[in-house]
Structure formats: structure tokens, C-alpha cells
């Protein structure tokens, strides 16, 4: 008896397997190599171009942050990777184009244009929020108690259904739309900053602040956090868990809608398969920041945006490798630091 106790107390830490060590060191080598290469490129092209491409990436990054928030909210509360979220964003771009160009018929920079942008923002956020809420109601709610594989496969299926909707609405080829945002920009120290970027910031930052207000300060937000921690306990405390989860989905959907409007206005194209790519990039952002962590999602979105911008702008590997770069970041991250930058390490290995 005593022997076992001393064994437990005094036993040396179990040795890390060689293979794991090899993996860790290979991972570090890769990271160092990439860093060296980036510095080399930075010296080669000069800081102005570096910052230019970083700023370009930042503009996308803020949009990724909005989408990533939707992922992180849903994952935080029911531990589901909502594969359909990116496609919801895609529908957001299409609805935005529809509201602005077809219904309100705005195509130039004007006061009416600004007003209709606000109208479009509200409308698309409402539409996307209700779509996401409906999906939750119809599909995920019934799978609350099912094994994990089931909701995951359902989410993949939903993503395809939404893509089909996008295909019907938008057609199989990408469409180009006019923008109501002012073009051009100003420059600071040789770095061109577009007005559209400023507009995106003006829309996203208040939204993010509102989000954090809802989650941190309101009763609903408290219910959300409680549900995320422990559903049963939350239910015992009188929280309507189903309604809280629905609310989370609606919130995430609305953010995806807002991102959709801003993307459609800044980039100007809509395509039915946009959501898959951007959704995955945004999910990478959410993982990078620490999934389930709201600040982390925003940070991750910005970082991924900058990485992508630098990769395409310098160029490191160029646009045609963009997807691979982001996914490599994702894979390395999940393997070596699954809890992300701001997430808390959990005892369970993800």
C-alpha cells in the first residue's frame, strides 16, 4: 500500500515520447523558418510595401473578425463547429446586393446611399439572424442530445443547402456590384489607406463593442455565459436554455450578415461558393484567438487578415497559395497550440 503511494508521489514525470518531441521541434523549426523568410522579404521589398499590404489585409481581417465571432459564439455555447456559418455570410453578401442595388437602387456615393447602407445593414442582419435561428430551431435543436458526429454532419449538410440557395439567387458565376462607399483614400507616410477601410472600421468596431456589451453586461449575456459553462446548472437556475441558444445563433447570424454587407460593399463581388473559403478562414481566426473567446476571435481575425494580406501583397507565396497558407496556419495551430492565443488551456487535449 505504502509503496504504491510513494510511487504515485515520487514517480518522475512520464517521459514525452520521442515522436512527440520530434513533432514539436519540427513545428518550431517551421515557425522559425517562416519568420526568417518574412524578415528577409521585409528587407527586400522595404517597409512601405510591407505596411501597405498589412493594411490591406487588416481591412479583410476586420470582416473575418465579424464572421469569426459567429463561430466562436456558437462553439462556445454548444461546442459545434457551425460549418454553415460561412455560407450564411455568403447569403449576407447576396442579400446586401439585392437590398442595395435592386430594392433601394443605390449605386453612387450620396446621402441616400449612406442611409440605404444603414437600412441594408439592419435588414441583412435581421434576415441572416433569422435564417441562423431557423436553422438552429429546425436542425440543431433536435440533435442536442445526439452523439457529436450527428450535429457536425448536419452542419455540413446545412452548408450545402445554403450554398444551393446562394446558387439559385446568384447564379453559378460571380457577380459584380456597384458600391455606395467612397473610393480612393488618403496616405500616411506612403501607406495608402482606403476610405472603404475606414467605413468598415466605423461599422465593425461599434458592432464589436455592442457584442461585448451584450455578452458582458446584459441579463441575456449572463444567461449565455451560464449556458456555455454548464447547461444543466443553467437550467436549474431558471434559464431558458433553448431560448438562450437560439439567441446566440441569431446574434452570430446577424454578425455574419453585417460582415456580408461590408464585404459586398468593399470587395464588390458575390459568388455562391464564397462562404466556404471565407468561413474556413474565419474559423481559423476563431481557433487562432482561442475558440470560445470573443476578444480572441477579433484578434485572430485581424492576425489572419494581416498574414493573408502580407502573403498576397509582398508577395510571399502569392494569392494562389492563399488558401494553403491559411490552412497551414490552422493545422500547425491545432496541433501545437489548440487553445489559441487567448484561450485557456484545458486539461482535455482537444
Amino acid at each position, binding site marked *: 500500500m505504502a509503496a504504491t503511494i510513494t510511487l504515485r508521489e515520487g514517480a518522475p514525470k512520464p517521459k514525452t515520447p520521442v515522436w512527440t518531441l520530434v513533432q514539436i521541434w519540427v513545428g518550431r523549426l517551421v515557425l522559425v523558418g517562416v519568420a526568417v523568410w518574412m524578415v528577409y522579404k521585409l528587407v527586400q521589398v522595404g517597409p512601405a510595401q510591407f505596411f501597405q499590404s498589412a493594411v490591406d489585409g487588416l481591412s479583410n481581417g476586420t470582416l473575418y473578425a465579424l464572421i469569426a465571432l459567429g463561430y466562436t459564439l456558437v462553439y462556445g455555447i454548444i*461546442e*459545434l463547429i457551425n460549418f454553415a456559418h460561412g455560407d450564411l455570410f455568403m447569403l449576407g453578401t447576396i442579400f446586401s446586393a439585392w437590398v442595395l442595388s435592386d430594392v433601394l437602387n443605390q449605386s453612387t456615393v450620396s446621402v441616400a446611399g449612406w442611409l440605404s447602407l444603414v437600412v441594408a445593414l439592419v435588414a441583412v442582419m435581421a434576415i441572416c439572424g433569422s435564417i441562423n435561428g431557423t436553422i438552429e430551431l429546425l436542425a440543431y435543436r433536435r440533435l442536442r*442530445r*445526439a452523439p457529436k*458526429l450527428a450535429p457536425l454532419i448536419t452542419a455540413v449538410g446545412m452548408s450545402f443547402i445554403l450554398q444551393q440557395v446562394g446558387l439559385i439567387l446568384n447564379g453559378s458565376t460571380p457577380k459584380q456590384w456597384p458600391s455606395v462607399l467612397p473610393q480612393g483614400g488618403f496616405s500616411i507616410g506612403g501607406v495608402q489607406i482606403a476610405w472603404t477601410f475606414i467605413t468598415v472600421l466605423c461599422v465593425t468596431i461599434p458592432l464589436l463593442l455592442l457584442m461585448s456589451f451584450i455578452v458582458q453586461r446584459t441579463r441575456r449575456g449572463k444567461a449565455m455565459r451560464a449556458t456555455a459553462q454548464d447547461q444543466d446548472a443553467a437550467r436549474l437556475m431558471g434559464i431558458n436554455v433553448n431560448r438562450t441558444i437560439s439567441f446566440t445563433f441569431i446574434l452570430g447570424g446577424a454578425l455574419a450578415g453585417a460582415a456580408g454587407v461590408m464585404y459586398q460593399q468593399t470587395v464588390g463581388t458575390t459568388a455562391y461558393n464564397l462562404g466556404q473559403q471565407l468561413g474556413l478562414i474565419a474559423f481559423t481566426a476563431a481557433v487562432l484567438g482561442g475558440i470560445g473567446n470573443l476578444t480572441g476571435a477579433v484578434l485572430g481575425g485581424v492576425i489572419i487578415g494581416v498574414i493573408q494580406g502580407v502573403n498576397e501583397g509582398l508577395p510571399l507565396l502569392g494569392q494562389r497559395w492563399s*488558401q*494553403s497558407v491559411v*490552412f497551414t496556419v490552422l493545422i500547425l495551430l491545432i496541433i501545437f497550440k489548440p487553445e489559441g492565443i487567448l484561450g485557456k488551456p484545458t486539461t482535455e487535449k482537444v
Partner: protein
Amino acid sequence: MATEVTTARQAPPTRRRARGLSYNAKWAIGFAIAAFVVFALYQWFLPNANANVQSFFNDWAPMSVLDECMVWMICALGLNVVVGYAGLLDLGYVAFWAIGGYIAGWFFSDFVFGVSWSFFGSARPGEPGIHVNFLLVLLIAAGFAALAGVMIGAPTLRLKSDYLALVTLGFGEITSQVFRNGDDIFGHNLDNGTRGITPLDPIKIFGFRLGPFDLTYQFLVMVFLVAVVVFVSLRLRHGRLGRAWLAIREDELAASMMGVPLMRTKLAAYGVGAVAGGLGGVAFAAHINAVIPDRFDFSISITLLAMVVLGGMGNVWGVMVGALVLAWINANGLKQFGTTFNSSFHTNINFPSYNFGLFGLILVLMMLFRREGLIPEARTKLLLREPDRAMLEAHGAEVDEVEP
């Protein structure tokens, strides 16, 4: 982990083997007869049948579509090992298909310049490129695919299921992008990029040369490959490894407590699944006589997943039916149905454009209403059904709903 049940899930009593032929012999004979009937139908009966019958078969199930269905079947069976047996969600399975395809592209065509090397190949002497015998190409592809499977599996298999899904997805996307951009990797042309590699060598087995139009004989080759994969799946399923997979699928923690080496077993599932993917890749490349990177995108992985889910995860026969149905719908069925529908109701609906929604709908509806698939495996049915509370408590279980 929706509900953690502390009662043991009771497996149904295994069916006693009937006297006489073993299960393996039975299915092998049935399979061979079915394959021969199809072969005979297309090879000897159809050319002599009247025009109506001929056009019916040509419209609804031409031989080339059947061949393609067989390729899908091979890959779906491979994915079934990973998803159905071991319960690991793999969303990047198309990578193995692509790897198999490109192995065929490199070792089975005149793509590789400046070498003229033939190893029991079917090329004429003096032709450039590497020409390895078809069967050997299959082996090489299987080896490379297994290697790739183990390589992607080794660092990622300790992840939780949803993260694993994501990493495999990323791996699939990276692989297809690497192949798509392969015409300029540090200035080297590795695979012609988006143009793809074409044409490939004719298949040559035991002295027979099959051209691209010998579809019925190609069908025999494909059926043989399907049979190999079915045989391997069935044998593994009943063996030690298969039981370990099922144990992991049903409860990882319990399995590891029972002494199942988790990593090695999961890696084996990945390896075996990848081998089937590689075989499917070679078969597909030989079938369409080309390797085109656009054929290897994410939707292929999802279609394969839909096949496995539709047919019944873990049940070889179910997956085969699922693969046959969906591959047929994808290749020919939906189009033909649309043509018939449009001409009889005078509408103009573009049915093939709806296959995205159709596949999504299949996944969602199956998950909501019939999670065990069309032809369920008894164990999967028990596993995927949500036990009701009364039943659990009757077993004396503590119903403990942890984070759904």
C-alpha cells in the same frame, strides 16, 4: 458527448454461421454472379438487343457511369473504414483520391519527360515517360496514399472529433491546391497544373490491353478492385483491429482502458482508408484517362460522406448501395430524370444544378430522422440512437448530461 451512459451497450447476439459455405464464400459468389450478370448484359446482350432497349440503357445507365459508380464505391468503402468503423470524421478524404490519381499520372503516362522507362508497362518502346504495369501502379498508389494517411494522421489523431474534421478538411484543401498550382513549384512543372495530365496508358492486365473505350472490361477491373476493398473491410471488421475500431468509435476512454492502443488503431484506420482512396484515384484516372485537379475539390469529400451516411455508417453493403445511388444520381440520374421530367411536363428546370441542395438535404434529413442509414448495421443503430431516459434508468444508469 451528449449523454454519458454508464450502462454497457449490449451488442446483439452474433448470428451463428450457417452450415456449409462461409459468409465470405457466400458474398464472394453472390458478388461475382452480380458482376458477371452486369458484364454479360452490357457485353453480349445489349449489342444484340433492339434499339429501344439499347437507348434505354444508354440513357439511364451507360457503362461509363457504372464504371464511375464503382470508383465512388471504392472510395466510399475506404471512407467507411475511417468514419463508419473508427468514428473519425474525415472531411478531406478527397486528398487520397487525388494522390492516387497523380501517382497514376506520374507512373502511368508519358508525362515524365526525359525518361523512357517501362516496367511491364503498356507503352510502345521508345515512348517517353514512366510506364509501370497497372497492377503495380495500384500498389504504388496504395503505398503512397497510406503514407500520406499516416503522415496526416500522426500529429492530428489525438484531437477531438470536430478539430480532427477541420484539420482533415484543411489537409484536403491544401492537397488540392498543391496539385492545382503544381505547374510552377519553384519553377518546376510537376503536374501541368489545371490542365491536368492526359492521356494515360491503356490498362494492360495479363496481356490484355484495354483502350479507353473498352468500358465493359474496365468494369471488370473496377469490380475486382471493389471486391478487394470489400473483402479487406469485412475481414478487418471481424478481426482484432476491426473490433478495436468499433470500441474506439463507441467509447474512446473505455477502449483505451481495455488496452486498445488508441493512436496505433486510429492510424491503422487512416492508413486502410487512405489505401482505398489511392486505389480509387488510380481507377478513376484510368477510367477518365486523365488526371484533372478540378475533380478533387471539397464537394467530393462531402459527396463521399453523404454516401457513407446514406447507406449506413459501418455497414459495407449499405455504403455500397449508398455509393451506387448517389454516384448514379450525380453522374447521370439527376440529369436523365430532369430530361424526362422536362419533356413530359414541358418545363425547363435545370435539375443537375440542384445536386448541392440535394446532397445537403440528404445529410441533414438522414441525421435528423434516420441516423443509422438506409441499411443500418445493428451496432451503429444502437450507438446512434439516443437512449431514452426511462430505459437508461431502468438499467440503473446515472443520466448525466454533460456539455452537449
